[in-house]
C-alpha cells in the first residue's frame, strides 16, 4: 500500500504477523556470540567452588604459560581498573548497606560462582583449559544459606558492613495510629500464613555473551552484549570503568530472552571492557549454561509472613506483611528494589481501608545475587495475598470466589460521582488507573466452568479417592509500566522512568522510528511500526524500527517492568504528533490556509469543510526535504523527538483459573485446564499479547510445580544445569486458554497497559490454590512450592498423620 492511498481500517488491534520472524526462523539473526569479530581474545572466568572463603593466594604462573594463553588476572591485579565498584542503582533507604563489589573478588569469595580470576586466550577452549591450571588456596568459611539464620549475624559475610542485614523498608498506612492493631483485635476472622518464595533461575535460552571492540588510539569502545539494557549499561560502564560516556557505544544484537536476567550490569561485561582496553584488542566471552546458573542473577527468594484481618462477612479490614528478602552475596543493579515493587500489592485487588503494615528486611547470604525476574516483587505479593485469601475462605467455610467478590474494588469506584473516570486511589495513595475485576473474574470462571468443576469435585473427592480434583483462582492487579519519574524518586530509584522516541519521515515518505526500548523477543519492531503507521496514516511495512544501539538510539531506558508499550509506545505516539504538527504548518503554507483549518486523517491533510483541498503527508515530507518553500521559522526535514514520562503506572489486571487433578499416591499434579482472562487495556497486536500471556503463565506455573534453585547447607548450588533445574518441556504444561476484557487506561492516549509480566504474576498462586484445594479434604492446608510429587506426597502424608 502506498502512503497516499486511503486506509479504511485501523492497524491497531490487528493480528499482524511479526516482521522479526523471518530472520529468526532462517538463522539469519545474529546473537552476540554469532558476531564475527576478527582478532578477538577470549575471556574465561575462574569461579569459586566455595560459598564463602578467604582467598589466601592465587598462583597463575602455570596457566599463563599454557598454549594460547595471553594473560591471567586476579581480582587484585585489576583493582586499579575500576573507577567505582559494580553498580547498584536502587539504594532503597539512606542507611542501606551495600558492600563494595568488584568484577573479580579481591580478598574473599562470597558465593559458589563468584569470579576469582580471569584468563585471556586466543580461543575459548584455550581460555577454559587454562582455568584448571590456576592454583587458588582458599580458607573456607561457614556458608550462610538460611535467611532467618543470616539475620542472627552468627557468620558475617561482609566484614566491612559488620552485619548481614542490608536494609529494612516499611510501608505503614493507617487511617489513625493503631488502626492495624485495632483491626486485628476486632476481626471476626484472621489468618497468619508463612510462604517461601523459592529461588528461581531465570534461564533465558540464550546464555549471556559479550564482545567488546576497542579503538586503541581513538579511545572509543563498542560493547556488544546480550542485554536488555544497552542504555543503562552505557552509563554504568562509563561510571564503573571510568570511560567518558560519549566514547562508549553499546549494541544489543538479537537477544535470546531476558526475563529480567539481562537487566543488569555484569562482571563479565566490565571485564571485557577493561581487558580490551588493556590489550588493545577485542575481547569476548560467552557463558556456559552451568555458569549461567551460578553467575547470572536468580529471582524470587523471600520468606513471607502475611496476616489478614476480616470482618464477619469476610471483608478485609487490615493486612500485615513481614518479608525477609534474600539479596544473595551482593547487591546487583536493582536487587534491593525488588521487594518494593511488590510492597504496594499485598492487598491485591481488594478494597482495603487504611490499615496496612508492610515491612521488608533484606539480608545477605552466600548465594548467587538475586534481582529482577519476570514480575519482580509482584508475583511474590500476588501469591501471598491470593493464597492467603483461599486460607481465609477455608477458615470461613465459604467459596474462595465468593470471598473475593465480597472484597473486589468495584468498577464504579474508578469513577467520581459525576461519572468522570478518576481512577481508584488506594489506601497507600497510588491511583489505580482502571479496572473491572468482577467482569474478568466472571469471564474466567465461566470459561473454566467453575460451578461445574465444583460439582464434579464433590462427586470425585470422596474418602479414599486416589485422584482428587482441585480448582484455584487468582485475581491480580499489576503495578507496571515503570514508571513515573517522580514516583521513582520517592522510592529512591537512581534513574527516571521516561522513554524516548524519534520519528522521521524520509524524503520518499518511508518512516524511521527510533526507540529507546530494547526488545529481546517481544516483537517491538512489529508493534511500534503499527503504532506509527496508525498515527501517520502510512502502511506498517513503510515503517522501519531502529533500536538497541546507543549510536542510533542515543536516548532510552530500555526494556523491563512491562514498560515498553506503556511508556515507549507512548513516546512513539508523541513523536508522531510532533511530526504531524510540523507537517501541518508546511501543509498550511502550501495550501495557503491557516494551520488550524487543516484536519489530518489517514495520512492526508485536508481543509475542514473542503475535503477536495488535500495534500498527503508524503508530499509534505518531500517538501520538508527540499526545503524550497517552507514557512518562515520552520526547519527543513520532517523529524521529531519526544520523551514520554508517564503520568501513572499502568495497572493491568485479570483473573486466572486452574483445574488440577492430584494423584494422592504419587503426589503428581496434572493441570487439566488453565484459563487466563487478562486486561491490558487496548491491544496493539492481540497475537503478540496472547503469546506474552502463554509464556508468562508457563513461567508462573513452573514456579508452582517444577522449578527451584536448590542449595545444600554448604552453599553449593545443586541445580546447575537444565538436567537438574526443571524448566518444563512441552509435555509438562497444558494448553493455555486465553481471553481478555478490555478496560482502556485513561492515563495514556493509546489506552494501553503492559502485558509482559501479567501471566507470571497470576499463575503461581492460581496453580497452588488449585492443588491445595484438591487436597484440603485430606487436611492439607499448606504446601510449599514447587508442588513436586515429593512435596505433595509429603504434605499429604503429614496431614494424614504419617499414615499413608
Amino acid at each position, binding site marked *: 500500500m502506498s502512503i497516499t492511498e486511503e486506509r479504511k481500517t485501523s492497524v491497531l488491534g490487528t493480528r499482524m504477523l511479526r516482521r522479526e520472524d523471518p530472520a529468526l*526462523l*532462517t*538463522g539469519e539473526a*545474529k546473537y552476540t556470540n*554469532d558476531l564475527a569479530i576478527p582478532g578477538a581474545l577470549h575471556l574465561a572466568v575462574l569461579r569459586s567452588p566455595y560459598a564463602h572463603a578467604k582467598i589466601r593466594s592465587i598462583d597463575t604462573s602455570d596457566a599463563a604459560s599454557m598454549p594460547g594463553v595471553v594473560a591471567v588476572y586476579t581480582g587484585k591485579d585489576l583493582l586499579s581498573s575500576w573507577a567505582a565498584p559494580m553498580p547498584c542503582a536502587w539504594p532503597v533507604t539512606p542507611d542501606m548497606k551495600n558492600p563494595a563489589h568488584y568484577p573479580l573478588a579481591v580478598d574473599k569469595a562470597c558465593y559458589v560462582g563468584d569470579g576469582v580470576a580471569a584468563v585471556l586466550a586466543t580461543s575459548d577452549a584455550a581460555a577454559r583449559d587454562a582455568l584448571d591450571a590456576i592454583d587458588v588456596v582458599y580458607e573456607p568459611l561457614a556458608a550462610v544459606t538460611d535467611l532467618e539464620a543470616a539475620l542472627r549475624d552468627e557468620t558475617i559475610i561482609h566484614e566491612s558492613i559488620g552485619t548481614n542485614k542490608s536494609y529494612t523498608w516499611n510501608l505503614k498506612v493507617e487511617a489513625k495510629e493503631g488502626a492495624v492493631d485495632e483491626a486485628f483485635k476486632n476481626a471476626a476472622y484472621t489468618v497468619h500464613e508463612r510462604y517461601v518464595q523459592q529461588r528461581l533461575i531465570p534461564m533465558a*535460552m*540464550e546464555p549471556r555473551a559479550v564482545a567488546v571492540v576497542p579503538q586503541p588510539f581513538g579511545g572509543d569502545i563498542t560493547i556488544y552484549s546480550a542485554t536488555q539494557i544497552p542504555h543503562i549499561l552505557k552509563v554504568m560502564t562509563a561510571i564503573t570503568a571510568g570511560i567518558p560516556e560519549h566514547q562508549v557505544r553499546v549494541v544489543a544484537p538479537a537477544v535470546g530472552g531476558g526475563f529480567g536476567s539481562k537487566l543488569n550490569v555484569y562482571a563479565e561485561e566490565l571485564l571485557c571492557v577493561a581487558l580490551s582496553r588493556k590489550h588493545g584488542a577485542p575481547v569476548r566471552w560467552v557463558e556456559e*549454561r552451568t555458569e549461567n546458573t551460578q553467575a547470572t542473577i536468580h529471582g524470587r527468594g523471600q520468606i513471607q509472613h502475611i496476616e489478614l484481618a476480616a470482618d464477619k462477612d469476610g471483608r478485609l479490614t487490615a493486612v500485615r506483611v513481614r518479608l525477609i528478602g534474600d539479596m544473595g552475596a551482593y547487591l546487583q543493579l536493582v536487587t534491593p528494589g525488588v521487594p518494593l515493587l511488590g510492597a504496594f500489592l499485598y492487598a491485591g485487588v481488594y478494597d482495603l481501608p487504611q490499615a496496612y503494615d508492610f515491612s521488608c528486611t533484606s539480608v545477605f547470604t552466600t548465594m548467587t545475587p538475586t534481582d529482577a525476574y519476570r514480575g519482580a516483587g509482584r508475583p511474590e505479593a500476588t501469591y501471598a495475598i491470593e493464597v492467603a485469601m483461599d486460607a481465609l475462605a477455608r477458615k470461613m467455610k465459604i467459596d474462595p470466589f465468593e470471598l473475593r467478590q465480597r472484597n473486589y474494588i468495584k468498577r464504579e469506584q474508578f469513577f467520581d460521582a459525576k461519572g468522570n473516570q478518576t481512577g481508584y486511589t488506594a489506601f497507600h495513595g497510588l491511583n489505580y488507573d482502571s479496572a473491572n475485576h468482577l467482569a474478568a473474574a466472571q469471564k474466567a470462571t465461566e470459561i473454566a466452568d467453575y460451578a461445574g468443576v465444583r460439582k464434579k469435585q464433590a462427586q470425585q473427592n470422596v474418602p479414599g479417592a486416589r485422584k482428587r480434583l482441585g480448582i484455584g483462582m487468582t485475581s491480580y492487579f499489576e503495578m507496571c509500566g515503570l514508571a513515573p519519574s517522580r514516583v521513582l524518586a520517592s522510592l529512591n530509584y537512581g534513574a527516571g522512568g521516561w522513554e524516548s522516541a524519534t520519528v522521521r519521515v524520509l524524503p520518499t515518505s518511508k518512516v524511521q522510528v527510533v526507540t529507546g526500548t530494547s526488545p529481546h523477543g517481544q516483537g517491538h519492531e512489529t508493534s511500534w511500526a503499527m503504532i506509527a503507521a496508525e498515527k501517520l496514516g502510512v502502511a506498517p511495512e513503510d515503517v522501519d524500527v531502529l533500536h538497541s544501539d546507543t549510536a542510533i538510539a542515543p536516548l532510552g531506558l530500555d526494556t523491563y517492568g512491562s514498560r515498553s508499550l506503556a511508556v515507549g509506545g507512548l513516546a512513539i505516539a508523541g513523536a508522531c504528533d510532533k511530526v504531524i504538527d510540523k507537517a501541518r504548518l508546511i501543509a498550511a503554507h502550501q495550501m495557503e490556509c491557516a494551520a488550524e483549518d487543516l484536519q489530518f486523517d489517514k495520512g492526508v491533510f485536508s481543509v475542514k469543510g473542503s475535503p477536495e483541498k488535500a495534500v498527503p503527508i508524503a508530499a509534505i515530507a518531500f517538501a520538508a526535504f527540499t526545503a524550497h518553500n517552507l514557512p518562515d521559522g520552520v526547519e527543513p526535514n520532517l523529524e521529531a523527538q519526544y520523551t514520554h514520562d508517564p503520568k501513572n503506572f499502568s495497572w493491568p489486571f485479570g483473573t486466572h483459573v486452574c483445574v488440577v487433578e492430584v494423584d494422592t499416591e504419587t503426589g503428581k499434579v496434572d493441570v487439566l485446564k488453565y484459563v487466563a482472562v487478562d486486561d491490558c487495556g487496548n491491544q496493539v497486536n492481540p497475537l503478540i499479547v496472547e503469546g506474552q500471556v502463554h509464556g508468562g503463565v508457563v513461567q508462573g506455573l513452573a514456579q508452582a510445580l517444577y522449578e527451584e534453585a536448590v542449595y545444600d547447607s554448604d552453599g553449593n548450588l545443586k541445580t546447575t544445569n537444565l538436567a537438574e533445574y526443571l*524448566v518444563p518441556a512441552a509435555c509438562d504444561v497444558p494448553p493455555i486458554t486465553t481471553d481478555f476484557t478490555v478496560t482502556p487506561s485513561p492515563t495514556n492516549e493509546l489506552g494501553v497497559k503492559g502485558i509482559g509480566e501479567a501471566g507470571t504474576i497470576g499463575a503461581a498462586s492460581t496453580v497452588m490454590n488449585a492443588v491445595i484445594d484438591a487436597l484440603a479434604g485430606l487436611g492439607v492446608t499448606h504446601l510449599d512450592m514447587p508442588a513436586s510429587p515429593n512435596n505433595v506426597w509429603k504434605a499429604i502424608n503429614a496431614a494424614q498423620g504419617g499414615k499413608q
Partner: protein
Amino acid sequence: MKVSITVNGTKQSHEVEPRTLLVHYIREHAKLTGTNIGCDTSSCGACTVHLDGEAVKSCTILAAQVDGGSVTTIEGLAVNGEMHPMQKAFMENHGLQCGYCTPGMVMAAIDLLQENPSPTEDEVRLGLEGNLCRCTGYHNIVKSVLAAATK
C-alpha cells in the same frame, strides 16, 4: 584431524581438533551461526540439526563421527528463497518470540512430522520433549507443528 562433511548440500573439508563437537564445527568451521547453543548437558535442543535426514542434538556428537555424513542446518531449509512449510507455520502461528530455541525447535518439528505425519496434540508435546523454550509456553509451538502437519 581432517573431516569432510556435506553441509546443506555442499561438501566441505576442515582441519579440526579431535574434541570438536558437531555444533562447534557448524558454527566455527562451516561458519553457520543459525544453530544455537543453549546448554552443556544436551538438555535444551537448541542445537538440533538433521544428520543424514534425522534430527540430532549437534552437541552430542563429535564432528569426527560425522565424517562423510550429510548435515542440514536451519540455513539449509529454505528453497529458492522460500521458507520451509514448518518455518512458515511458526511465523503464521507466532510460534517464536526471542527465536533462540527456534532453529532447533523447527528442525526437531520437521523430524517429528517425518516420523508421524498426523500427530495428535499430545504426540506433538511428547515429541518435542527434548527441546526447551522459555518464551512461548509451547502453546503456539504446538499449534505451529499441528498446522504444518495439515499442509
